[in-house]
């Protein structure tokens, strides 16, 4: 309602008429007046019922004013109300009449909640297994019909997953190398074993930290992007459109991402290793150990097996992170919130998965003597 100069300030008061009461409103009853008078109106509503609203002195009213009067006196008759007020009040009364009364809050039973969570988790697991099965079947189909795999998409994702992550990976790797070298030199110096810092850092990076940290970069940077992109496509019904057109959505959307991440991850892990070793070498130089000494330690203690094992793990991490990201996106619900949820699920799921897998690999490599 637009302000009109010269109108009186709104007032309301309850007046007794025999055993019942009348609520009188005067002046300009707009939103600001309703905000000011709401407690007065609600207080007036307590006690004997209000049978009528005397609106003869009403100059203007908006919907907040109407709601206030009808909340205080829902069934009261209107007296002396101007035509515009009658229309607004009747329309508001009708609108408020369509609101169902609030039901009792749903009781919370722990057993029901646990059961529901278990069933949901079970459904998620089944859907995850179905997704893996679908990906495997599609991969087998692609092996017999390579045309199904869109090379252009694979290259695009390789660029996004790999090339564009190089600077971040190099920076993180270098800093991790610097930090590890400094931190490990402190205890080793006590035993006069500072010379073994390259061995410690080298093995840590090649076998564990290189693949693991590259995996964290991939999960945060790419897993979430896959989930958000596919989630948006799901929300916009683009995935449904693909299915209805007879296009294999897994071959078109999932497989190129899986292939790209599986190829890019060992490269990222390798870069992380190289940058980390460079950082470590720099610090060793500042501690008085020349490049030749560092190189000699690394050559003696690191084997190709260490590097190959780490890169194999990295490829597996890439496959799993991309799979989790794609599945999170394709199983997104509706609305923009669903896309955010899918991205979160992809990052959290991806990081948890690679840590769990790393533990499994650690046991496996130990048993196999790798």
């Amino acid at each position: 309602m637009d302000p009109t100069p010269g109108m009186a300030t709104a007032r309301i008061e309850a007046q007794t008429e025999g055993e019942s009461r009348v609520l009188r409103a005067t002046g300009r009853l707009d939103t600001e007046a309703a905000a000011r008078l709401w407690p007065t109106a609600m207080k007036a509503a307590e006690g004997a019922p209000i049978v009528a609203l005397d609106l003869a002195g009403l100059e203007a009213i908006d919907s907040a004013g109407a709601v206030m009067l009808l909340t205080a006196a829902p069934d009261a008759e209107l007296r002396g109300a101007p035509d515009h007020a009658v229309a607004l009040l009747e329309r508001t009364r009708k609108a408020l009449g369509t609101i169902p009364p609030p039901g009792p809050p749903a009781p919370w039973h722990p057993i029901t909640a646990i059961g529901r969570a278990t069933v949901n988790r079970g459904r998620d697991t089944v859907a995850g297994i179905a997704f893996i099965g679908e990906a495997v079947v599609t991969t087998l189909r692609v092996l017999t019909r390579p045309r199904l795999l869109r090379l252009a998409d694979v290259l695009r994702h390789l660029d996004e997953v790999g090339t564009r992550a190089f600077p971040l990976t190099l920076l993180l790797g270098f800093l991790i190398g610097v930090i590890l070298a400094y931190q490990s030199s402190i205890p080793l110096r006590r035993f006069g074993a500072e010379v073994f810092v390259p061995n410690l850092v080298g093995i840590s990076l090649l076998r564990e930290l290189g693949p693991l940290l590259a995996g964290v970069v991939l999960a945060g940077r790419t897993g979430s992007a896959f989930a958000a992109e596919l989630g948006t496509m799901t929300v916009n019904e683009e995935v449904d459109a693909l299915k209805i057109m007879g296009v294999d959505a897994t071959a078109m959307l999932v497989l190129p991402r899986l292939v790209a991440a599986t190829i890019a991850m060992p490269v990222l892990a390798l870069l992380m290793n190289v940058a980390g070793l460079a950082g470590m070498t720099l610090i060793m130089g500042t501690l008085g150990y020349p490049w030749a000494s560092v190189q000699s330690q690394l050559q003696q203690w690191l084997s190709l097996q260490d590097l190959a094992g780490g890169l194999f793990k990295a490829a597996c991490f890439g496959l799993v992170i991309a799979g989790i990201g794609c599945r999170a996106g394709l199983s997104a619900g509706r609305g923009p919130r669903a896309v955010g949820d899918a991205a979160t699920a992809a990052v959290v799921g991806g990081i948890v998965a690679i840590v769990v897998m790393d533990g499994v690999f650690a046991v496996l490599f130990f048993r196999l003597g790798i």
Partner: protein
Amino acid sequence: MANEPVIRAEGLSVRFGSRTVFKDVSFEVRRGEIFVILGGSGCGKSTLLKALIGLVPLAAGHAWLLGEEIAKEDDRARRALLRRIGVMWQSGALFGSMTLAENVELPLEEHTDLPRPAREAVASSKLGLVGLGDAAGRLPAEISGGMAKRAGIARAMALDPPLLFLDEPSAGLDPITSAGLDKLIKDIARDTGTTFVVVTHELQSILAIGDRCIMLDKDAQGMIAEGDPRKLKAESTHPTVRAFFRREAA
């Protein structure tokens, strides 16, 4: 001043890069009327609406809303002016993390001192008004496109603005809901004196609710007709206007 037009547009032009969407569009909207901006797809109807409310920069021309030129206002005056304007977006533009009731309550919370029960009651009444009284607790993701549009109208009306812009309010709605919405717009305009600017190409709605209209044309890059839509339908000799109202293929 009572006789001052609610909207005055003079020589409006909008360009995106080198592409001119429309040029030299001038019109006035009077208080309490339902003014329709119509035209075929891609002619710049929604862009004109956004230009009027200051979301799209004007390449040329001036637009006054409620007597004030939005492009020249400082932040505080602009905010005060925007409080007196309601906009229903084409898709509803509801906030996905809020229930419908919370969506409608948001402008009340931001711009008024109403206590929470009052805000809830006003939001309920607005949702009831558009037939969504029983869906107040639902999230936008849980409702249909038509319901989202109606909730968008409820949110636009939350502060009882004297000027309401509706972008394609009845597009995609079933005929009964669409007719109900048309009636609602007419009732609100009649009872409250609210001025409506409706962007639409729904012929039935235009003829049912429009007091006056302007028609934009993509080829002409501007306005090709202005007046009472019923008169335009009956009397216009402009080939595009005739084709539009008679649903003839170009």
